[in-house]
């Protein structure tokens, strides 16, 4: 049925959902979805009824944090940053395939308490209609904490959210998806502050070389780069410099994935790594 609705009709539906809630606390990462949701909620409910909250930890990239701050400032979104301690949870740090569940449990526990203490009616996340069929253990944590997903409920897809963001002048409209830094570690490789910092510094280095869509995958002492197909020539052109910069961060070898950037590439190895989980974690 949603396929027949226009974007504007879905936005009308979203407006109705938000009005029914009255006041909201938005889990706000500065990504495409949560930025749109937070700004739209301010538009519908007024700034006094919205609080966007960002969970900050070593797994949250500094560049994303700057985007979140910038958008909140520019679009009048009341914004608060809180520390999250998912790395202190051994279940998260062991990096099982449902790692996101433990991270989101930490986040939503804190946001639910914050919403209650401030009298906000609901906690919202930025899940959209495209997320419904994905393997997302983080969504289970959201459901357990009563978190609502109004973008999904309104039937808005990622492409539609990008288009609606563009129409509203949000700078995030064409921003590449930006999952947390822990997503660069294969399941089973323990999540540590040191490894997250290695990945973040390596991705900062690639960004400084002009790459726009890429990932640095952490395979122990090997950095495996995934870059978009149209950026492969640049990767070859900058190979020597990139290799030296990443080796200086502690990687023994730096390799460029022949197949290029693709979302969820680490899931390709999921079954084997699950079997080896206790053997390689540490």
């Amino acid at each position, binding site marked *: 049925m949603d396929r027949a609705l226009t974007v504007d009709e879905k936005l009308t539906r979203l407006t109705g959902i938000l009005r029914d809630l009255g006041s909201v606390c938005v889990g706000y990462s500065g990504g495409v979805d949560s930025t749109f949701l937070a700004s739209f909620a301010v538009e519908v409910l007024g700034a006094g009824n919205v609080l966007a909250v960002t969970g900050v930890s070593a797994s949250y990239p500094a560049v994303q944090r700057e985007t979140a701050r910038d958008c909140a400032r520019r679009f009048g979104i009341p914004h608060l940053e809180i520390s999250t301690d998912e790395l202190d949870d051994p279940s998260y740090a062991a990096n099982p395939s449902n790692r996101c569940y433990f991270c989101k449990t930490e986040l939503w526990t804190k946001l639910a308490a914050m919403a209650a203490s401030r009298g906000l009616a609901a906690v919202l996340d930025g899940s959209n209609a495209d997320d419904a069929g994905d393997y997302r253990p983080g969504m289970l944590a959201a459901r357990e904490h009563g978190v609502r997903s109004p973008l999904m409920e309104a039937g808005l897809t990622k492409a539609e959210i990008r288009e609606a963001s563009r129409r509203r002048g949000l700078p995030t409209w064409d921003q590449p998806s930006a999952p947390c830094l822990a997503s660069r570690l*294969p399941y*089973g*490789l323990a999540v540590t502050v040191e490894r997250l910092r290695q990945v973040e510094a390596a991705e900062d280095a690639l960004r400084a070389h002009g790459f726009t869509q890429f990932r640095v995958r952490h*395979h*122990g002492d*090997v950095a*495996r*780069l995934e870059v978009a197909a149209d950026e*492969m020539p640049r990767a*070859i052109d900058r*190979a*020597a410099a*990139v*290799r*030296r910069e990443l080796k200086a961060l502690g990687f*023994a*070898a*730096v*390799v*460029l*994935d*022949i*197949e290029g950037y693709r979302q969820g*590439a680490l899931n*390709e*190895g999921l079954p*084997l790594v699950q079997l*080896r989980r206790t053997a*390689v974690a540490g």
Partner: protein
Amino acid sequence: MERAPATRSAEERAAMAERLIRGRGIEGAIVRAVGLDGEIAAIRAPSECIGRLKELAPEVKALGFRYVAFDLAAVDERFEDDG
């Protein structure tokens, strides 16, 4: 395409991949199995061969690798062995 037995050692898989790639015309290619459990085939070859290596990636993966990658050491002017 049938995958190779998971019990095959990383060195064996690397040697097989090297033979495969050289046999397909990329002479002098060197393959190492790197990563946490040798899941990456790291290939040193001339950078102009990347397109051809991409075509061969499914066959290399079938030897027991999850990823096929170009080793940036191959184009580093200050080439040194990663060990």
